[in-house]
């Protein structure tokens, strides 16, 4: 009798958890979780300023912003290579500021694989916003008319920030390939990351004119590749059948 009662308690508990598990995917992207990740990154940035690596990252961000601002201030068409290099510095600096964590520790935390994957995507979104903020600042300092400002923001800045933020989370371990157990890890990561970076730089550096169809086509392709890559990385972090000791 007592065992039956305990079985039913256990079943109810399991049903409740299964029910919760079904909507857990969406819960991982709730505003509360997003803000919590932001707070976590803020603590990490604050702490990282006490370390040589963190200070180096901070200097890179500042140097990138100053260099970029000098290049764009009052200009209508800044040198795209210089601007891209300045933005790379900013992206690298942010990556150094917010990636202090030891990846092995993440595997020991009480989170599921999907939560772990969502955690990385949320971090990526924050880095995306930070880089986009800097790019918007650059665009605002340029001598651009409103339509050109918006065109640059939507066709250049957003996909470029996306690609840079993807690159920062792609360094997390499960994405790295392993010769030991290669068959268990999907072999696409490097190809996908190279594709993202090549496409974003191509999009950033090609500027044919406001009405040029080429600009629009490249930007659409860039958006598509970025969205595909985010989905791919989420799937890979969350669903790849690989354990830490196999990496």
């Amino acid at each position: 009798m007592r065992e039956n009662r305990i079985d039913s308690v256990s079943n109810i508990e399991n049903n409740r958890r299964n029910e919760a598990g079904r909507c857990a995917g969406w819960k991982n992207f709730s505003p509360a979780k997003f803000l919590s990740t932001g707070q976590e990154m803020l603590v990490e940035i604050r702490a990282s300023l006490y370390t040589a690596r963190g200070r180096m990252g901070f200097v890179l961000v500042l140097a990138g912003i100053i260099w970029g601002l000098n290049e764009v201030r009052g200009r209508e068409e800044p040198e795209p290579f210089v601007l891209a290099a300045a933005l790379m510095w900013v992206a690298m600096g942010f990556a150094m500021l917010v990636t202090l964590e030891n990846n092995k520790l993440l595997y020991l935390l009480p989170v599921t694989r999907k939560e772990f994957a969502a955690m990385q995507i949320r971090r990526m979104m924050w880095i995306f916003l930070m880089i986009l903020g800097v790019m918007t600042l650059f665009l605002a300092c340029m001598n651009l008319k409103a339509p050109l400002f918006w065109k640059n923001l939507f066709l250049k800045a957003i996909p470029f920030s996306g690609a840079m933020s993807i690159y920062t989370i792609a360094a997390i371990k499960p994405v790295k390939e392993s010769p030991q157990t290669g068959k268990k890890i999907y072999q696409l990561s490097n190809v996908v990351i190279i594709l993202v970076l090549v496409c974003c730089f191509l999009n950033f550096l090609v500027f044919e004119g406001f009405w040029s169809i080429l600009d629009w086509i490249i930007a659409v392709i860039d958006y598509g590749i970025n969205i595909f890559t985010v989905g791919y990385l989420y799937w890979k972090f969350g669903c790849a059948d690989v354990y830490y000791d196999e990496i």
Partner: protein
Amino acid sequence: MGRKETEFNSLQPLLQIEHGGAERGDTFWLREVNLTLEPGTFMGVIGRNGAGKTTLFHMLCGLSRISQGDVRIEGISMKQEPGRCRQKMGMIFDDEYFRLDLSAKYAAKVYGKYYENYSQEAFLSYCRKFEVDIRQNVRKMSKGNYMKFQLAFALAHHPRLILMDEPEAGLDPVFRREWMNMLYDILDDSCSILFATHLTEELEQYADAVTMVSQGRQVFSLTMPEIEEQYRIVRGSKEQLDCLKKHLIGRRRMEYYEEGLCRTEGGELPAEVSQSRPALAQLMEYLDGKF
């Protein structure tokens, strides 16, 4: 946690491994491990280097694939719900898991959020008790302080099971004694400790049960009284030990007598041979050594 779930959990062993096996790549590193740990128990895991102790701990905390059997923490399957199982575990490793470029206080604050029962106040209080400088960068901590920091963090989320994989390696004897006393103090009816170590003398003083692994297989998993009951060190002449041949697991010749390890199976051995309780080091020598 509800009262009914508490009642349900209280009937489960804290840790249960049934035919557990782990593999890395295509190679099995551990197989057929059967182990049960009751609440409030201090269990030592012994074995030679490369015997499979670390793989056992990796399997328990989800770093290695459980390719055979299952691991259950309070009845929850590690295979199916690793996140829930890890909520109940505190981990202390000799490895660099926690080596971050963060101060102890911030590292605990950031990672404590992932535990349902974590309390930063409790962490700070344990740090004060263990004399850990919370402003110090974790990467720059001494070995002893790093261990104490990990213990404070583990205790701050009120784990049911604490896993320790050779945390005392490279520590001085005074600290090792302090460490064992600390562990003994934290042990209560709600928390158990699984402790892999080469310090068999310390285990003899503190452990309630011992599991031995050798070449990726479990040799035994027994309580200390069971070990005493089942194994005996016998000393006597060659003829006397020849008479015990069917009980002997191993023997070696000393200068004036012969010594061997007997498995008594609860029965009595002849009174004329000298008998004593085996030390864990002797068990390891006879069960896993070569003479």
